[in-house]
């Protein structure tokens, strides 16, 4: 072990010494033996665990050097680097609209030959497939960890008052009424930060809206006015149980308020737990699946890919990057990551589920999970702001206005995509005939 470190150090030193006089010379002998793989991780909160992963990788590999960077505002930095055509080998990003756009712009390498992919849960591979704007052949990302969103609750408070986790919408509403009667604020929200409106929205939509809603709208068979009618009703029904004037408070305000016991519940994802703990490290937090359905059977857990790895087509050491992917998918590394960051492993196997998510275990084990619908909304459409507008609109026609605007904006912002999907479908059809 010691010898290896020493060797690595000598290599490093000699590389530095050689680099100075030979600047401009494309490759020296040492560059040929040690290839560098850069991994850009978009979660700055995971910087410590990624540094540990980097250390462990470099200890065991002589010919490849892994460099991890975890900048703040990683998406903006990544996008500016892409404009300059300066590509890292691997990006660790979420399974969201950015992934869809990068993939659609032809930035990613097909990695179906990576063996580690065989061990990933099919549900997550399927989730990535649904993120493709226009269907593609091949696999372009290796899912790593997933998160879950529903309702966080104050366990101590629930135990003290004997409140039970609700399983359907009626139970949920009567629970809210009961909490209110006890003189406690049932829900808190930080709707000033518009994106937080998407947390309840997504959790509701995976239960009471159809998964194919977007596809149906894109092919012109349906409208969001129909598809999202129930979601819109339910998110508005929650409003009376949220603190007064929620658009005055942001995400941090809500996290602090919930951590200090100012409310019994908060409709947000598991990603908020570290933030709550920073205010109240002792707090016992639980999380249950949004009980949006009329019946328990209608519920689904809102779970999406929190971080996945893709290789960039334009980068230099793509073969070495594949080796890094295999390494990342080892049980050792996954356990290391889950220990530090929580979440759900994307790999098949017996990985621990964080204490806070234990109420969701049934759903996770049986695979009753659906991806965040907003991962498919174009970010420039600002659906979060539309929802915020709807929630503070008290007129009788609020819902109609909201969904009509949703429909017209959707057509406007997705024009190019919709056209290409229709072209693709027409092509498929003519090929089949």
């Amino acid at each position, binding site marked *: 072990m010691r010898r290896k470190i020493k060797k690595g150090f000598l290599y490093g030193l000699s590389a530095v010494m050689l680099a100075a006089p030979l600047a401009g010379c494309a490759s020296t002998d040492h560059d040929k033996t040690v290839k560098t793989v850069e991994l850009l991780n978009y979660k700055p909160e995971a910087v410590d665990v990624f540094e540990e992963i980097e250390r462990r990788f470099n200890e065991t590999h002589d010919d490849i050097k892994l460099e991890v960077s975890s900048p703040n505002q990683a998406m903006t930095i990544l996008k500016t680097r892409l404009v300059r055509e300066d590509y890292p080998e691997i990006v660790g990003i979420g399974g969201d609209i950015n992934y869809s756009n*990068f993939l659609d712009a*032809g930035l990613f390498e097909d990695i179906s030959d990576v063996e580690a992919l065989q061990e990933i849960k099919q549900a997550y591979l399927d989730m990535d497939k649904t993120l493709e704007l226009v269907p593609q052949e091949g696999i372009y990302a290796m899912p790593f960890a997933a998160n879950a969103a529903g309702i966080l609750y104050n366990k101590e408070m629930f135990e003290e008052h004997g409140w039970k986790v609700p399983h359907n919408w009626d139970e949920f509403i009567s629970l809210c009424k009961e909490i209110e009667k006890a003189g406690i604020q049932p829900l808190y929200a930080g709707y000033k930060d*518009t994106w937080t409106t998407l947390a309840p929205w997504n959790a509701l939509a995976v239960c009471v809206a159809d998964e194919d809603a977007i596809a149906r709208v894109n092919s012109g068979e349906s409208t969001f006015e129909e598809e999202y009618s129930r979601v819109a009703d339910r998110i508005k029904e929650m409003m009376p149980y949220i603190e007064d004037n929620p658009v*005055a408070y942001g995400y941090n305000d809500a996290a602090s308020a919930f951590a200090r016991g100012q409310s019994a519940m908060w409709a947000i994802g598991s990603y908020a737990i570290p933030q709550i703990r920073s205010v109240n490290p002792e707090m016992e937090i639980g999380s249950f699946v949004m009980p949006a359905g009329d019946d328990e059977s209608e519920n689904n857990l809102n779970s999406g890919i929190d971080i996945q790895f893709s290789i960039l087509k334009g980068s230099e050491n793509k073969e070495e990057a594949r080796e890094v992917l295999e390494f990342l998918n080892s049980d050792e590394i996954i356990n290391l990551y889950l220990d530090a960051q929580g979440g759900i492993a994307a790999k098949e196997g017996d990985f621990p589920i964080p204490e806070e998510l234990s109420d969701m275990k049934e759903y996770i084990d049986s695979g009753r999970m659906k991806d965040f619908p907003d991962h498919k909304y174009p*970010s420039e459409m600002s659906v979060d702001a539309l929802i915020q507008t709807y929630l503070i609109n008290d007129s009788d026609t609020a819902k109609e206005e909201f969904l009509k605007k949703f429909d017209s904006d959707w057509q*406007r912002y997705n024009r190019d995509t919709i056209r290409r999907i229709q072209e693709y479908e027409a092509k498929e059809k003519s090929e089949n005939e």
Partner: protein
Amino acid sequence: MNKKKKMTGRQKTFAAIMIPALLLFFCFNTYPMIRGFIYGFTNYRGYGDFDWVGLRNYADLFTDPRIWNSYFFTFKYAICGTILVNVLSLLMALALNAKIKAKSFLRGVYFVPNILGGLVIGYIFSFFFTYILPALGQMWHISWIENSILSSKEFAWIGILIVGVWQAVAMTTIIYISGLQTVPDDVYEASKIDGAGKWKEFWDITFPLIIPFVGTNLVLTTKNFLMVFDQILSLTNGGPAQSTESISFLIYQNGLDGGQFGFQSANAVIFFIVIVLLSVFQLTMTSKKEEQL
């Protein structure tokens, strides 16, 4: 064609001074602008492949209610802001130019808002509007500030205006103070001998003589207010209900964060033309009113 003369030494010096500046200006201003203009004709997302879409982005600009709202908001904000800032700054400058105690100290204090960063001020005021002001409102039962004004669709822009004006007054006041100091004492003496009151003295002596400064300030403050960005980012983030989205905020938000690089480039081109026209208009208006001693 025989007019080709050699440059004199003097001209060479001028050229040597000017050319680097010209090159820098071209590289960092003109060239990016031309690129932006070209991207305005594409559906470029900021990375990857793109298609040419001709004038579609421009046609879309005029039919997008969100763009119209952002222009309406920005102009409402800029007009109110410019008037308020210039009136307040002129009053402040007159006060700080009068014979008062601790004049330089006060001038320093009033300049502080300009040194602080826009985001810092924004976050401090955000806390003030969200927690302190409503608490005061509840204590004294003033209904319209019992809730944070930043959460009201109708009044959030006033919150941003207050912060913007508070910060902009500093610099404008300094320019007005320097303007007031260019007015020679003898004209004041002359007006006093002719028996002019304070009011008349201001309107007929001071104001006409500082018109060039008024012109400069008007152009500068209008331009700064039209480009309002960091106050919005820190106070409302464009909300509530998209009521405080300014043009630059929208260009940044959707051009860089969202995938509308091409479309927002077209928006930036239009915005640039609007600002140029406005500045030219303001300068010609004020230069007509200028007085020379």
